[in-house]
């Protein structure tokens, strides 16, 4: 078998699905396959996933992908590189078996624990050391919750894993976590690259109860013999630890270096920049995650991305075909494009799910503001999209207090709509390049693998090969309209804090 036939697989353990990509050694995309798994909400604030179902889904998709696409085409898999959603916690017993479901990033059960720590001197010390905002999403807070509210499970837990650690453990027998994913746990010191003692003490655990720390390039893992046989993979296939999906999406979007930022709009959203230094925000609004020792990915996440537009479509869109959300969304976007920029002064605050960056207010709620008798149904559609993107802009603006941003690379299923891409360009008043998000994660993981294999001297060099497609240029007049409204948006978001709290309390009474 000649060298051209070698290929690299990337496996992304996303929030709702596993996506497997294959690339040849030149970085040419060969194919991909996905398989989804559910998130359970046993109680209002709970978001959980079944680790065994994820494991089986990964195996199943991997097996189908290999048998249908890779083996028949004569490819030999030399390397498999992992990425995964951040912030999951899976307690396991001393045999390594899960104690119940994994708790995922969107779980909010630790609200009270987060409130108690946030704003204290210890909270500040932990944030500065770990780079992860003090928030229920953080594994630090989740483990603290378990110590306080689920003592029995806490006491039986030998180790607190991430979902990715569990899947890799099942496949290889080793229990590891890469620096990148570890840096999103609130337990990892992003300056010294070790577990942070102050955070461990606060959560009531020891470093031995966490997976072993490894660099993202860690490549000594091998598949268990049984899986080599059942998957038809060689015992020499390298398993590379890889990184978190957020860091890899940034890498794969080619945003590597000064003056660039990347925006992701999937169900949720994020704005990120990369730099060689930690970005210190006095108000603790931003995260700092690491990819490798030289690179920090900093930014802010929003809860209220495309999920809000999906909600709007479900409730108010017209459905020509049963369950055809896509079709209905496209119809709405077409309607929205008939309304002038700024929706004739109808403003929308998209905080239906509470909000993370930059206001970090779990009690925030949605608001339509400025309604008058001239506003028609179409204004609501456009205002909804504009509101989601004002929120993204407010994160970008917070980042710009620290770093200059000249160009944007956007990705995620919602930025694939030209209408959204142009809106982002106009609101930010910056040129915008569009990339597909799951492709970006896969490509990012491929670049880690390729760099580990010596095909690039550094990640920075690796990103130079990424071609940046499709550019949107900002319209200055629209930008001015948006800025006039954004000022009101920003003021309302902070001014309403007391009323948000009161209405949230009323709603949860």
């Amino acid at each position: 078998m000649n060298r051209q036939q070698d290929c690299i697989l990337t496996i992304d353990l996303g929030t709702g699905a596993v996506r497997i990509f294959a690339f040849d050694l030149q970085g040419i995309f060969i194919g991909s396959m996905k398989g989804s798994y559910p998130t359970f909400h046993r109680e209002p604030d709970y978001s959980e996933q079944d680790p065994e179902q994820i494991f089986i889904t990964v195996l199943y998709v991997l097996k189908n992908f290999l048998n249908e696409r890779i083996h028949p085409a004569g490819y030999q898999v030399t390397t498999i590189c992992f990425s995964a959603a951040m912030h999951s916690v899976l307690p396991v017993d001393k045999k390594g078996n899960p104690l119940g479901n994994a708790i995922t990033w969107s779980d909010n059960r630790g609200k009270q624990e987060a409130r108690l720590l946030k704003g204290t001197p210890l909270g500040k010390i932990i944030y500065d050391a770990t780079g992860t905002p003090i928030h229920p999403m953080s594994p630090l807070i989740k483990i603290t919750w378990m110590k306080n509210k689920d003592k029995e499970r806490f006491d039986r837990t030998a180790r607190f894993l991430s979902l990715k650690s569990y899947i890799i453990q099942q496949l290889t027998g080793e229990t590891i976590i890469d620096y990148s994913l570890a840096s999103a746990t609130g337990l990892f010191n992003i300056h010294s690259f070790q577990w942070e003692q102050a955070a461990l003490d606060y959560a009531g655990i020891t470093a031995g109860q966490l997976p072993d720390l490894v660099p993202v390039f860690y490549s000594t893992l091998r598949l268990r013999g049984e899986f080599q046989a059942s998957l038809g993979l060689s015992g020499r296939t390298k398993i590379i630890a890889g990184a978190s999906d957020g860091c890899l999406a940034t890498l794969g979007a080619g945003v590597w270096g000064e003056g660039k930022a990347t925006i992701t709009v999937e169900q949720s959203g994020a704005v990120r920049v990369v730099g060689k230094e930690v970005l210190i925000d006095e108000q603790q609004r931003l995260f700092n995650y690491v990819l490798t020792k030289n690179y920090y990915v900093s930014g802010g996440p929003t809860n209220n991305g495309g999920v809000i537009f999906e909600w709007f479509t479900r409730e108010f869109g017209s459905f020509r075909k049963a369950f055809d959300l896509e079709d209905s969304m496209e119809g709405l976007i077409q309607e929205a494009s008939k309304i002038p920029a700024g929706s004739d002064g109808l403003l929308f605050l998209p905080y239906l799910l509470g909000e993370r960056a930059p206001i970090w207010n779990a009690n925030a709620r949605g608001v339509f503001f400025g309604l008058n008798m001239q506003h028609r149904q179409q204004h609501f559609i456009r205002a909804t999209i504009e509101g989601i993107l004002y929120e993204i802009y407010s994160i970008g603006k917070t980042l710009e207090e620290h770093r200059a941003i000249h160009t944007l690379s956007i990705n995620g299923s919602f930025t694939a709509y030209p209408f959204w891409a142009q809106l982002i360009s106009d609101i930010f008043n910056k040129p915008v390049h569009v990339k597909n998000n799951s492709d970006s994660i896969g490509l990012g993981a491929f670049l880690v693998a390729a760099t580990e294999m010596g095909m690039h001297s550094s990640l920075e060099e690796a990103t130079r090969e990424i071609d940046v497609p499709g550019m949107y240029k900002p319209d200055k007049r629209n930008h001015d309209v948006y800025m006039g409204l954004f000022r009101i948006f920003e003021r309302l978001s902070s001014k309403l804090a007391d009323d948000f709290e009161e209405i949230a309390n009323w709603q949860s009474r």
Partner: protein
Amino acid sequence: MNPYLLQKGLSKELDLFPHILEFGLKKTQTIRLASLPVEKSDSFSIYYIWEGRYDWNINDHPYILYPSDLAMILPGQPFGSPRGILDIGTYSWITLDVKETDKTFGPWSGFSPTESRSIQKILWLNSIPVAANMKETGKLFQQLAQELHLQEIGFQTRVHQLTDALLILTARQLIHQNHSQRDFSGSFMKLEQELRKNLSHQWAVEEMAALVGLGTTAFTEKVKSYTGFSPLNYLINIRISEAIKLLKQTETHLTDIALETGFYSSQHFSTTFKKLTGYTPSQFRKDNTDKS
């Protein structure tokens, strides 16, 4: 409309229809105490309101029913008025001898076995036992009454058809009520919960599709694009992941695990498990319980 009451064993009209336990129309003009206490129902009934306003408790939940509303009572569910009295008004009802465990509704029904299972699933899994705007149901009740009273040529077949039609209409309405046809992920989540609750059941794709209110083809296509798997392969994911938990956490015998998670036999379980994981179930159990 004149009131009437037909009862199995007492009314000759029902002699040819042993599955119909009661069929009647009730008119109430004065309120009497203790005329409708809450009692556990032992059979399956459908009520249709013609006039009045009824305060009823069905399966421990209060409902207010108005004209052209329908109520469905399953065997074992408590049913009655919270104040114990029958309100003023008029309603029709039919009580049928059907149970959830029955493979089919009976020789009288024209349903195929799969249709029959699907309709039963929909009726029995339903959480809201009332439906509004069911004038079509009222018409079916009128036609049934006419057929049973006049007994014209072909009435036996007509009664069977009308009973089937009544069940179809009820099932369809409940499905549309539970699934908005706008939110596939929400509907799929509900289906997933049902699959997990009844994992040992031999699910057919038709049944799963019926539960989200889609035809088999549209359902399969939708599931494939949403999950990446065919409906049956998605079901295998759930079966195997539940089996893994049982293998790791319990001493349960392999055959019992196989049946509990919906495999035909321990042989079928072993083959599927090995194909997917590379381990036989017993190897897998040994590997995951020996470690210290």
